């Protein structure tokens, strides 16, 4: 009982601590692929540290939403972390507090607040970026729902721990076409939700073309640090869900021993590292889609998820 | 064995045609086609006398229905080859290289059509039907105008689409046979295994083959390529396309009727009736608005394919009418296209509105067109009228009043529409289009040769043919 609470807290600590590292590794890999040296993988930590020690400037026109949004965005992934299998295969203390749909909504709540905060400022680029993010989000919602339905339908439950067990035990289940298609649809979703290429360019500086980064333009000092941290945590959480539930549901601790749980940490990090390599390859070979082409991208994801659903529903 | 030689002759001629000049190729083709015709006639006699013949360990076989189709293909192939000699020389539509491709392709086309009725394995039948499309693609595009190319494109794409659908149908039928206990994958084998096949599989195979090969046969609503292809091709090729190619495609569908009735699936009759009536009705309507007389004859092909389908669906005595109709249509339609080709050669146009008073400006073409138009529309005492009458009579005797009524209505509408067009073309004041040429000798010979059955078989049906139709009808009714 106590172990479960402890492991839950360890999970949260892992996510909070290692999320900037994941972002640092991603940026470094992208630079390496482009034959540059790239920043150190610990650079995001240094950035957050630097920002925390700077002054914060808040616009007089903004309301409490602007001040609260970074904290909401920071807390939302933490909430979701409590629900998903990060290190262990068996459900932890708060695991039944919410299921995957609940987790999805909590993440969306964070994004919603941040979009509102972007509108809250008087900066013209904020609302523009926020409206674009909402467009992408609204197109991605059906895909989210259907992918969750598919995996829940196959597993007979919406709790991530139980879903994850389905792919593990008869290993052949892993190759079922519904699984492959659901993985593909979810991957396209991650690209859309976390504003990776081809949906959005995370390293672009041109405000008119920004979709996601424009939401954080107005923040400075502590707010900026927390927003940055929250952004990398969102990516980390999405990756953990994707990898631990769908793609590689192995390497998680099966017993209650603390040694197993601690051993799972480097395994999870390793899996994330492998996925980041794949992500970098994809990001480096695609160019950013024009805005109206994003509907095509997301409708392709939607169709893939629908086919995954029907494939599993018809019992293949 | 005659069956093997039948297939070897066009192959050999095609190979030779590649090496010789066009004139020699034309003569070679005519000789080859004549030999094929002689062989086919002898084979018919033997089949009627002694039952189905097989060759090559059972890979080739022929029963009365297949021999009927074979005979028609051989005859039309021979006469069309004769017509080609004069026609191709006169029409300078194509560059020199393509002209040299005409006769080799012609022979390959003829080969593929000959193969359809005599190949025993159904999968090979599918392949030869698909090959008829591929062999005739460049023949349809021969005139090399943008319209001809458009027509050829639609032809190839739509019929190949149908062929792929039919492929899945053939695979389903094979699966059904396997589930029913196996056996040779031939028409006879399918007939025997049908009662034991799971009905869903049989139906799916049937529907897919009906839609797929129906596209190739020109059944509505999959007929949209037909008026284009059959009007833009050179007249000799049109005769082959309309007269016998659609019939060979329809043959594959017709073969399934006894399979389904043997298995007790009598709803198949309804499918045949509905598709047939829709085709006839659509063709009758479209015939009213047509503006090009080759398109007119093409729509008439759709109409007649529909009539044959209805005749099969009516069952019983109507099957004799169906066999009669198949033969009558092939012979008369090829003659019609020769007549149309004659008009094109003399006046240089395909528009109905430009042709007037043909009987005065070019008597041979005028008479041919009048005869062809009357015959194909179904005027007595020509063969088509007799076969349609037989079908209607048998339908009434069987009690299918609605189907017979609708069929009669559509046939009458088509008759009136075609006669109106032909009348204005042949009679009336001398037309706006001046005479640009006269008919080459080979064309005249071909016209006369093909006119003989048109005039003759309405009033007098030789006993051999009568026996052939009866035997073919028996096959359609389910005799092994």
């Amino acid at each position, binding site marked *: 009982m106590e172990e479960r609470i402890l492991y839950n807290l360890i999970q949260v600590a892992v996510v909070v601590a290692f999320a900037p590292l994941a972002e640092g590794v991603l940026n470094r890999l992208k630079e390496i692929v482009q034959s540059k040296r790239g920043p150190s993988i610990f650079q995001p930590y240094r950035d957050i540290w630097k920002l925390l020690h700077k002054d914060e400037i808040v616009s007089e026109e903004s309301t409490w939403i602007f001040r609260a949004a970074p904290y909401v965005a920071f807390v939302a992934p933490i909430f979701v972390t409590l629900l998903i299998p990060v290190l262990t295969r068996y459900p932890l203390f708060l695991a039944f507090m919410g299921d995957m749909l609940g987790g999805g909504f909590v993440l969306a709540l964070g994004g919603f607040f941040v979009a509102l905060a972007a509108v809250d400022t008087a900066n013209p680029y904020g609302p523009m970026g926020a409206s674009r993010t909402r467009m992408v989000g609204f197109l991605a919602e059906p895909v989210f729902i259907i992918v969750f339905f598919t995996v829940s339908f196959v597993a007979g439950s919406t709790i991530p721990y139980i879903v994850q067990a389905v792919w593990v035990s008869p290993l*052949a289940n892993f190759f079922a076409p519904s699984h*492959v298609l659901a993985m593909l649809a979810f991957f396209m979703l991650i690209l859309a939700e976390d504003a990776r290429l081809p949906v959005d360019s995370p390293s672009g500086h041109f405000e008119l073309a920004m979709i996601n980064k424009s939401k954080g333009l107005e923040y400075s000092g502590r707010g900026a640090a927390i927003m940055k941290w929250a952004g990398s945590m969102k990516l980390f959480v999405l990756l953990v869900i994707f990898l631990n539930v769908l793609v590689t549901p192995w390497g998680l601790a099966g017993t209650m021993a603390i040694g197993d749980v601690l051993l799972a940490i480097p395994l999870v990090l390793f899996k994330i590292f492998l996925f980041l390599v794949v992500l970098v390859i994809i990001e480096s070979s695609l160019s950013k889609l024009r805005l109206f082409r994003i509907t095509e991208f997301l409708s392709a994801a939607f169709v893939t998820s629908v086919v995954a659903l029907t494939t599993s529903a018809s019992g*293949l | 064995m005659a069956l093997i030689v039948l297939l070897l002759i066009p192959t050999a001629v095609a190979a030779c045609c590649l090496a010789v000049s066009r004139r020699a190729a034309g003569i070679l083709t005519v000789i080859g086609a004549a030999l094929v015709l002689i062989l086919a006639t002898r084979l018919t006699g033997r089949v009627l006398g002694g039952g189905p013949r097989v060759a090559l360990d059972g890979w080739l076989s022929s029963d009365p229905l297949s021999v009927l189709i074979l005979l028609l293909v051989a005859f039309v192939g021979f006469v069309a080859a004769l017509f080609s000699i004069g026609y191709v020389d006169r029409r300078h539509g194509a560059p020199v290289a393509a002209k040299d491709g005409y006769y080799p392709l012609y022979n390959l086309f003829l080969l593929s059509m000959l193969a359809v009725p005599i190949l025993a394995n159904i*999968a090979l039948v599918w392949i030869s039907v*698909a090959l008829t499309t591929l062999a005739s*693609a460049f023949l349809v595009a021969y005139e*090399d105008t943008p319209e001809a190319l458009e027509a050829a494109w639609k032809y190839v*794409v739509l019929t190949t*689409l149908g062929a*792929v659908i039919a492929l899945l149908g053939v695979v389903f039928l094979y699966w059904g046979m396997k589930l029913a206990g196996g056996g040779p994958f031939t028409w006879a084998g399918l007939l025997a295994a049908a009662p034991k096949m799971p009905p869903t599989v049989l139906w799916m195979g049937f529907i897919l083959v009906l839609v797929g090969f129906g596209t190739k046969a020109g059944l509505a609503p999959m007929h949209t390529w037909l008026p284009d292809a059959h009007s833009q091709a050179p007249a000799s090729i049109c005769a082959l396309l309309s007269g016998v190619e659609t019939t060979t495609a329809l043959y594959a569908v017709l073969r399934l009727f006894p399979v389904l009735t043997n298995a007790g699936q009598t709803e198949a009759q309804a499918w045949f009736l509905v598709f047939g009536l829709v085709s006839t009705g659509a063709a009758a309507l479209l015939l009213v608005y047509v503006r090009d007389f080759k398109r007119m004859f093409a729509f008439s092909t759709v109409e007649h394919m529909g009539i044959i389908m209805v005749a099969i669906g009516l069952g019983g005595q109507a099957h004799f009418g169906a066999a009669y109709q198949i033969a009558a249509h092939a012979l008369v339609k090829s003659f019609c296209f020769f007549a149309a080709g004659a008009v094109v050669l003399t006046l240089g146009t395909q528009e109905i509105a430009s042709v007037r008073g043909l009987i005065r400006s070019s008597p041979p073409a005028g008479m041919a067109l009048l005869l062809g138009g009357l015959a194909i529309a179904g005027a007595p005492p020509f063969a088509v009228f007799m076969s349609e009458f037989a079908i209607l009579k048998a339908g009434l005797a069987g009690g299918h009043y609605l189907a017979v009524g609708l069929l009669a209505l559509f046939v009458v509408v088509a008759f009136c529409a075609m006669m109106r067009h032909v009348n204005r073309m042949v009679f009336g004041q001398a037309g706006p289009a001046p005479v640009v040429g006269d008919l080459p000798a080979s064309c005249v010979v071909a016209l006369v040769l093909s006119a003989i059955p048109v005039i003759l078989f309405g009033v007098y049906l030789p006993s051999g043919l009568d026996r052939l139709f009866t035997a073919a009808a028996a096959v359609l009714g389910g005799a092994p």
Partner: protein
Amino acid sequence: MSDPVASYLMHLNAMAGGLFLLAAFAIVATRQMLGCLRWFVVQALLLAASATVIGIAVGSLHLAIVAVVTVVTKAMATPWLLRRTVRRELYSRREISQVLNIPTSLLVAAALALLAYAIVSPVAALETGAFVEINLSVGLAGLFLGAYTVAVRREAVPQLLGLLAMENGAFFAAVSIAPDLPFIAELTVAFDVPVTTLVIGLLTRRIHERVGGTSVGLLSALREK
């Protein structure tokens, strides 16, 4: 065949089927002709993979040879023939014009795939083993999607690729329900694909020479006016 191995094979085949269906969707959704051709080759390779897997499971050398023939004719001969006949069209990087835009096309394609599943379900129960169920539904869906591609594209080469994709679908169904068609039939049906490609390719080239483009969907001179 031991049970876990059989189960693995079944699921491998299922994965090939899922990816085959995905390739069919990709052919509907791709904008460029070269992309269409590449997805077609992927489809053909998945077809060969499925044939191999089923061949191993059923113990049929016949199917393995079918797989090899498929790879040779569809994955190698057909692209080569296309490159020989319509090279300029194929490598031109322009967008294919279509009647419906891509998201709508994808939705229609999804509906067609569902229709294929619905049609197949009463039939697939007739034979045991998941091979038939998957291959039949995916094959029929591939057939429908290929036919849809032919209907919706206005350019010659994508229409041809749609036809070839249809044939892939028909074959995909055939390898599971008719794995022992007589060899001569199997071979000739397989060679039908390159011959069709050759004829249609040459016709496309002729059209391009005569008409100046290959937007065959826009050719509409032959109509009753």
